[in-house]
């Protein structure tokens, strides 16, 4: 087991290297001169001397391999570079935005776990009931609605419309921003919204971000639970005279969780995509909206730095998923033969 974890940790290094290098060369092929961009954009006609200075300062006229080498040298020493667009280092952008994203993702994940799994289990136990049918259709429908459309629908229903109708203040949720000044001390409290005002900013984006993966988790949980309920050991448990609750929770759940756990890991890539859209729709100042913004502004260092962070986190979470897979199913022998 430890050797498996170490091997997987080592595999993250080439993955991150190749992914970020790929983006580096991709952006190098982009039309448009970053120096002009830093100086204020082509439409402002920045003065050539300034452009010259910037080009030298950032080493933009070095051969690409030199720039590439320098970039990795800086990254390895813990410096992700300087944003082209804003007067800020990528490290500080990362430190600013990451907690916001984690806060949103954490609550979305809680919703996914609680709603997705319980709906899936219920629907499996009461198979062919109207609730089950509703789940099947509902989950398919929710995963077909684009994240951004769902975001706007929720905004309209819970914020814009109540505002228009002049409903009491507490019934109107917020559509943009985060409303949470972060203090240095007690940083861990940041993840738990304080007071009704902060909740009102959090609820809609959290539901929006959670929607797709919740629907997926519910479908997966249902299918997996149905399969488990038909297993021999479940019949044995029933024959022993255990209560249905004990059978489902004690015997079924742990076994049915297996494929769902894998899904939660695999699904992470899609969740990151959903996060970009959700944060854009709700002007949530997180990593997703910052990356989208940086890509359209060709702010190369920001894109690379944030992608690097995301890829590392993504790989680590997948590693955790694989390890927990072994915990859920002792039959899975890690590190031997399998991928």
């Amino acid at each position, binding site marked *: 087991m430890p050797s498996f974890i170490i091997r997987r940790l080592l595999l993250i290094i*080439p*993955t*991150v290297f*190749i*992914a970020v290098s*790929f*983006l580096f060369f*991709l*952006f190098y*092929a*982009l039309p448009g001169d970053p120096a002009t961009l830093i100086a204020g954009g082509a439409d402002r006609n920045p003065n050539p001397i300034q452009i010259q200075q910037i080009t030298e300062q950032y080493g933009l006229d070095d051969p690409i391999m030199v720039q590439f080498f320098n970039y990795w040298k800086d990254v390895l020493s813990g410096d992700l570079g300087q944003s082209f667009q804003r007067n800020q280092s990528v490290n500080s952008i990362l430190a600013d935005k990451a907690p916001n994203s984690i806060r949103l993702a954490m609550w979305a994940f809680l919703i996914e776990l609680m709603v997705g799994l319980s709906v899936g289990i219920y629907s499996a136990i009461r198979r062919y009931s109207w609730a089950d049918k509703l789940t099947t*259709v509902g989950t*398919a*429908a929710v*995963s*077909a*609605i*684009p*994240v*951004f*459309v769902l975001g*706007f*629908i929720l*905004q*309209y229903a819970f914020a*814009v419309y109540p*505002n*228009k109708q002049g409903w009491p203040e507490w019934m109107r949720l917020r559509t943009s921003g985060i409303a949470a000044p972060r203090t240095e001390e007690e940083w861990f409290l940041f993840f738990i919204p304080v007071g009704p005002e902060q909740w009102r900013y959090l609820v809609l984006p959290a539901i929006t971000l959670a929607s797709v993966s919740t629907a997926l988790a519910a479908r997966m949980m249902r299918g997996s639970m*149905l*399969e488990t309920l*038909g297993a021999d050991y479940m019949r044995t448990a029933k024959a022993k005279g255990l209560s249905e609750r004990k059978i489902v929770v004690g015997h079924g759940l742990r076994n049915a969780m297996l494929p769902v756990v894998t899904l939660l890991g695999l699904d992470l*890539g*899609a969740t*990151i*995509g959903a996060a*970009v*859209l959700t944060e*854009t*729709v709700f002007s949530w100042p997180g990593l997703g909206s910052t*990356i*989208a913004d940086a*890509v*359209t502004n*060709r702010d190369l260092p920001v*894109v690379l730095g944030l*992608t690097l962070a*995301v*890829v590392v986190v*993504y*790989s680590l979470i*997948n590693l955790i998923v694989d390890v927990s897979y072994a915990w859920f199913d002792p039959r899975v022998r890690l590190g031997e033969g399998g*991928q």
Partner: protein
Amino acid sequence: MTNPPHVDGIEISPTGALPAELPHTSQPVGLWSDVWRRFRDNKLAVAGLVFVFLLILVAIFADVIAPYSITERDSSQFRSGPSSDHWFGTDLIGRDVFSRVVYGSRVSLRIGIVSTLIAMVIGVFLGAFAGFVGRWPGALVMRITDIFLSVPYIVLAIAIATVFGRSENSVIVVLGLTGWLGVCRIVRASFMQLNNMEYVEAAHALGFRGRRIMFRHMLPNSLQPIIVYGTIAIGSAILAEAALSFLQVGPQDPTPAWGLMVSQGKGDLANAPHLVLFPGLAISLTVLAFVLVGDGLRDALDPKLKTR
């Protein structure tokens, strides 16, 4: 001993008349007619299929169906709600939303289908190669797939779209180049299983070339998951196209891409929610239809799943 009065196991009724409909016992039931029979029983899947057909008709006859062109402006109506003149209302500069949604079906279907075809071809070739050859070339392909999967898909897509320029074709290229990962894994897994089948060994023993074994012998046998995946993938591609259009890295203004229409209409949710609602509904229903057809196909192709 004389023959009892039955034909192929069918009892003849006392009156001597044959049942109105004979089971096809004498002629083998083909795989596809069997699949179709099971597919037909799934109401949701049939509804999805009907919707897809309708959508294709709408796309083909968009000129006939749409009352206005995509650029025609009604200068007396800006962002007005649905009316008898403009069924889905008008947008910020007075264009008819219904007509634009109708023409938008062309954009979505074209991007969805073409990009999925590209992705399927790449994925099938790489997956077949990785599964058939195995050893280090196969492992290399899977490593590359893992790396692509570990880059947030949407970042990659936005980056590539920015490089290729913001247009319909670049979205097709982007989705084609990023969409092959899933099918590659499926085909590889399927080929690795088939590698051990006797008929594949027999083909090897007969001295057929690898390419022939891969595409003539093995591919037809892994076609079912590919078809199911491909159907759902068209839906996913349309969804991804909408997301890229929404982020303004897809087709540009006069093009009535549904995602772009949502993006243009999002500014005035209070007074003109229809600008988000109708194109949003069009995306959702289209994606849902393809997913339902795909799900139905999967159940119909694999009856074991249903009876379990």
